[in-house]
């Protein structure tokens, strides 16, 4: 199929950006969306133009590197799929597709469709872990975990850190990302000793970079891993608990 693409081009963080229209020809319906962009780039390169810069790595929906706004939807029209999993079967010959980078204050554009998502690492760094130095672990079966609990924790653990939740949110909030990690660790028995400190530090760090939640639930709709905003509710509860018990945070001064 032949397609018309409106793609956001921007040379660098400080440069002005804008849409440029391209024609891409000979796209197979079996190709993935990113393979369609590969094809465009190959056509651009051989025509002497600079290819469109976009990020991707595993191309099977698990690494979280890719992320594009396709016709205004994070990761495009398919439910519960990253844009690398979107296939061109979703389109018909002659379609026009608009491709943009994530739009959020906390994610400045680096070039074309690539943004800086490093605040996510800062949130994890603030407390998204269980402090167990290598070698200090008891036997793995020493702490039984009910299957239901393990499954519930897993619902948060599946987050791939792609940033679609932030891009979808009218406030540019990162509540779903933060809540997913907090839920994963706070639900497990191993995560209890640091529960308050983790929650307080991660939320406080999150708020340095991102907007706040106004319960639109757009994040949930955009999440390629179907993570539920129920986890945000849990984070809110744990945050109040952490603050009111004054145990939150190792950085008390």
């Amino acid at each position, binding site marked *: 199929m032949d397609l018309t693409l409106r793609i956001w081009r921007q040379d660098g963080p400080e440069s002005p950006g804008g849409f440029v229209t391209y024609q891409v020809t000979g796209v197979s319906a079996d190709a993935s969306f990113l393979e369609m962009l590969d094809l465009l780039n190959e056509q651009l390169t051989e025509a002497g133009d600079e290819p469109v810069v976009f990020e991707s790595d595993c191309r099977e929906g698990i690494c979280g590197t890719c992320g594009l706004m396709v016709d205004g939807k994070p990761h495009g029209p398919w439910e519960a799929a990253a844009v690398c999993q979107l296939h061109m079967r979703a389109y018909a010959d002659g379609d026009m597709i608009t491709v943009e980078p994530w739009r959020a204050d906390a994610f400045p554009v680096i070039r074309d469709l690539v943004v800086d998502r490093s605040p996510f690492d800062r949130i994890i760094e603030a407390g998204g872990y269980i402090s167990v130095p290598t070698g200090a672990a008891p036997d793995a079966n020493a702490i039984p975990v009910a299957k239901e609990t393990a499954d519930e924790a897993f619902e948060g653990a599946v987050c791939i850190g792609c940033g679609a939740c932030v891009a979808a949110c009218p406030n540019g909030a990162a509540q779903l990302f933060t809540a997913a990690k907090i839920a994963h660790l706070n639900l497990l028995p191993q995560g209890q000793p640091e529960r308050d400190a983790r929650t307080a530090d991660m939320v406080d760090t999150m708020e340095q970079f991102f907007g706040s939640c106004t319960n639109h639930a757009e994040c949930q709709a955009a999440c390629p891993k179907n993570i539920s905003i129920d986890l945000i509710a849990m984070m809110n509860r744990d945050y*109040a608990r952490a603050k009111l018990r004054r145990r939150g945070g190792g950085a008390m001064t």
Partner: protein
Amino acid sequence: MADDGARMATTHQRHTRARLGAQTAQPLRRRGSLLAELYRSAVGKKYAMAISGLVLMVYVLLHLAGNLKLYAGAESMNAYAAWLRVMGEPVLPEGGALWAVRVILIVAVIVHIAAAAQLTAMNRADFASRTMRWSGVIVGLFIVYHLADLTFGWLNPNPDFAHGSTAYGNVVASFSNPVVAGLYIVANLALGLHLYHGAWSLFQSMGWSNPAVKPWRRGFAIAFAVVVAAGNISFPIAVLTGAVA
């Protein structure tokens, strides 16, 4: 050798500062009282909104229940209005309980609006919850008019307006004007929308998401909003249609 670590760190930090694509966080500090510390965060402000909202939800429900006396006739309605002034006696002075309730409501409204304004200001993408904002503003303006009309009587068309004893007549006089009745209807539709999103958000902000609660959060929010809005809207309609005169 002692400064070796420091020297190494400088070499590396020079790189870090020069590099794009790695935003840094500020160190976290804790200060102030427990509640102030909680309130400082956006999540804390949502808590404040949720708790003040809950107080106001309880109030609108009781307010509706009281006003249903309109359908029991003038005597019943007026007696209820008069009772509101003497409730709590003799422990409390006349009007004491009423004022206590009013103070709680005033505080709740202030907290609710202040937290909403601050949250909106904090959000980089200057957007907030659009529905909540305009429905909130309509409800807020309506409350001012409503107090001036039926509580203080400044705008009430009833020539015999007296605090407490003429409630039935005040309502009928006010709602007989189709413009005023229409205003009440529109305002209560906005209130219903506000309550629907608010009641649902309450669960989310307070973190009430356990499996026992989860399935009926949405239903509760709808039911609550519909009952309050429909109940309140029924009064001007009843007056306009002559069912209550």
